[in-house]
């Protein structure tokens, strides 16, 4: 065996045909997405994610085993059948969401890009070969990922569900594997086709902007959808009768396919199974067609449009307003630099969108759980819980937005260009950092207050709603103060290696932050709003906390020196953070 592995490794080290080398190149590049900083770091990330899944499975296996033991012990198989159906639907939908999320992360690499054309332009390779290699590399990556993700759960669920009812109503490993894999492939191919259409329909310059918006929207939808997916196993009672909209819900198509493959071909299941096959074939054809369509056309458009100078709209009025509020030109310089950098660099925007999407997902989850607690049909919200969710919303948003901004500020843009700040740094440290504070207030703290104020007023009435908004504003300011004490750099001018902290550690930190900052604080605010006088006490405590942090922050700015690096760490250079 070691000899075979050795020979395989040796063979891979050799130079093979151009077609093979191209496929190998494109296949390996899919692992280096925007969210990992160096070639090979995906392994660390994958191990981290696997560790989390393994830890979760330690909790789920006994729970599922116990659940099916109980269901198998029931006198009738009805409940077993519905639970198995709900669990299959859950796995199919989860596979679709994971496939969608991964495809969204790989969004910029789905088609050959400008860099591919330039890098391969001078080589003796036909453009047709590049396209074929990219497409086959893409499909190979998608298939390997789907198989690796679905294989284990497809074996696990039938194993824990085994019992006296499993022969008739149980889950078949092959049926589950095929239906889940096709469901995941359907989503993947559909997203490739969507990008292909955008690529060919939109002008090359507009494509960049629209493509990022679509990527952000997809990310938000998939993240917000996860709580819904996780609640599917609890919906078994609703699966007794197929709802009329099942024909329009792709997960239901693949559930139908699973039923047919498991030997339970009722009329509706057959219809849904046909729909699932038509969906996969349709999405696959659309993806292939857009690839063929973009061959040459996209390349010519990309390369020809590169020669023309792109124009950025000059919003002079925004500058004039900013100047009214920030009279010092040096402070205005750092503020304007941050405000122009964030929306113009793809990776920064994407990372911030991810943080915002996570916040929206957490908020959505709290409201969704409320709706589930009274059943989907008769929605009757519990007032207290609803109020708590309304208070949690601004806290969650401010936490994730501030954390996201803190993260993106440390990712450099053209690190070599920071000499412009460095030769003007002396004596201006506090002024520069003051601009960072203003930027955080304008981009995170104030928008959250303004966005959530109508909701607070709606749930609490005008006066209490205003007090609630103020009580949510102060923790945001305190959190910003805490963040600013640690800031020693102008945004985007210093270097930080993303992904250095293990995934599991990051997850634990965020879980603690959400529990303490959001759950505990929102409970405290609700309690104080209920008792006359205590809201004033809480206001005083929060105000003091903010002022103490602000004093500490100002002291730190007075003695601190700004942080600048000469060169980015090689791994950060590999991220191509400034590529657009």
């Amino acid at each position: 065996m070691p000899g075979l592995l050795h020979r395989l490794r040796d063979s891979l080290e050799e130079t093979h045909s151009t077609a093979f080398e191209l496929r190998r190149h494109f296949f390996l590049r899919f692992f280096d997405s925007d969210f990992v900083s160096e070639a090979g770091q995906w392994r660390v990330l994958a191990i981290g994610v696997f560790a989390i899944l393994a830890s979760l499975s330690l909790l789920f296996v006994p729970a599922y085993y116990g659940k099916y033991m109980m269901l198998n012990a029931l006198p009738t198989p009805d409940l077993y059948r519905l639970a198995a159906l709900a669990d299959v639907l859950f796995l199919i939908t989860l596979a679709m969401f994971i496939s969608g999320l991964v495809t969204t992360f790989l969004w910029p690499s789905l088609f050959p890009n400008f860099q591919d054309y330039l890098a391969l332009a001078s080589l003796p390779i036909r453009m047709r070969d590049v396209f074929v290699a990219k497409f086959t590399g893409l499909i190979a990556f998608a298939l390997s990922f789907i198989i690796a993700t679905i294989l284990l759960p497809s074996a696990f669920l039938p194993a824990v569900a085994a019992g006296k009812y499993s022969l008739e109503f149980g889950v078949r490993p092959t049926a589950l594997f095929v239906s889940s894999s096709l469901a995941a492939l359907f989503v993947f191919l559909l997203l490739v086709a969507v990008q292909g259409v955008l690529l060919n329909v939109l002008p090359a310059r507009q494509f960049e902007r629209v493509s990022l918006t679509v990527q952000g929207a997809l990310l938000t939808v998939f993240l917000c959808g996860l709580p819904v997916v996780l609640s599917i196993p609890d919906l078994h009672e609703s699966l007794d009768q197929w709802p009329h909209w099942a024909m329009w819900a792709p997960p239901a198509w693949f559930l139908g396919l699973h039923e047919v493959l498991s030997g339970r071909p009722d009329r509706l299941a057959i219809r849904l199974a046909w729909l699932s096959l038509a969906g996969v074939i349709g999405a696959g054809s659309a993806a292939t067609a857009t690839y063929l369509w973009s061959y040459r056309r996209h390349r010519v458009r990309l390369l020809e449009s590169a020669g023309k100078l792109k124009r950025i709209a000059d919003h002079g009025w925004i500058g004039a307003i900013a100047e009214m509020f920030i009279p010092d030109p040096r402070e205005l310089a750092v503020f304007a630099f941050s405000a122009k950098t964030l929306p113009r660099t793809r990776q920064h925007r994407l990372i911030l969108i991810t943080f915002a999407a996570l916040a929206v997902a957490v908020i959505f989850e709290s409201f969704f759980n409320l709706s589930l607690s009274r059943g989907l049909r008769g929605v009757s919200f519990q007032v207290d819980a609803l109020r708590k969710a309304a208070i949690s919303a601004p806290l969650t948003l401010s936490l994730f937005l501030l954390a996201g901004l803190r993260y993106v500020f440390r990712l450099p843009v053209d690190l070599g260009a920071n000499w412009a700040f460095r030769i003007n740094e002396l004596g201006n440290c506090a002024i520069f950092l003051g601009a960072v504070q203003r930027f955080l207030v304008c981009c995170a703290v104030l928008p959250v207050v303004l966005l959530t104020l109508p909701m607070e007023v709606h749930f609490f009435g005008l006066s209490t709603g205003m007090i609630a908004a103020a009580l949510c504003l102060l923790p945001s300011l305190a959190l910003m103060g805490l963040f600013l004490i640690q800031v020693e750099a102008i945004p985007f001018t210093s270097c930080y290696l993303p992904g250095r902290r293990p995934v599991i550690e990051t997850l634990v930190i965020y879980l603690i932050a959400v529990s303490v900052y959001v759950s505990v604080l929102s409970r405290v605010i609700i309690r104080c709003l209920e008792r006359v006088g205590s809201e004033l006490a809480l206001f005083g405590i929060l105000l003091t906390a903010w002022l103490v942090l602000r004093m500490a922050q100002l002291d730190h700015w007075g003695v601190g020196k700004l942080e600048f690096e000469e060169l980015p760490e090689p791994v950060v250079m590999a991220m191509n953070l400034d590529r657009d």
Partner: protein
Amino acid sequence: MLEVRSLLKRYNHIPAVDGVSFTIRPGEVLGYLGPNGAGKTTTVRMLTGLIEPTDGGILFQGCDVRADWIGFQRRLGYVPEEPHLYRHLTGREYLQLIGRLRGLPRRVLDPRLDRLLHLFALWEDRHSPLASYSKGMRQKILLSGALLHDPELLILDEPFSGLDVKTTLILRRLLQALASEGKMILFSSHVLEVVEKVCSSVVILRQGKLVAHDRVERLREILQQESLEGVFAQLTEQEDPGPVVSGILAAIRS
């Protein structure tokens, strides 16, 4: 006057610049020459405050700049060797950033940068991101940024890199005009023909050490060379390129 006294910079105990001393008087354009790795950029980076010298002193108008770095940097204009710019900003936005960091109020800054954009033929492309500029256009932006605040001392590291013929001629004349107004200019370059035409005197470095500091004509006279290129080759002991060329040819045929 700018005086550099026994400037020393060591990296891991290895000197990159080793006891370099020179002066630039008002109205003087000093050429700063040396082969790759001689310590030119390190000197420039020490003069601009980007790195700290290990030892030695920098005096501006008779005062140690370390006593008032801010004051010194206010009177300094700098064009770096590499066109490191924030490429997502437009040409105009970049100049606005530099001007604001220099503390120039809008009423002064806006008309000044608009005039420079016109004069450097960048007006039409002022709203395009620097990423789409050619190398020459980026160089013009760097030059405009260095001149925005009317500095007393200009430090130019390869300022002609990528410039077209017309702008090269303009810049040459501009440097002479700035010198005639009493500005001090440190001009670091590899292009010896340009240095010979623009600079009144030169400093030549080799392996971090100063090997010559004099007027160009005097160096030609002492070393009995017809051009600055000959002076440079003699002082820096440039090796004969012939064997290297033969080696490259042999390597690609092997």
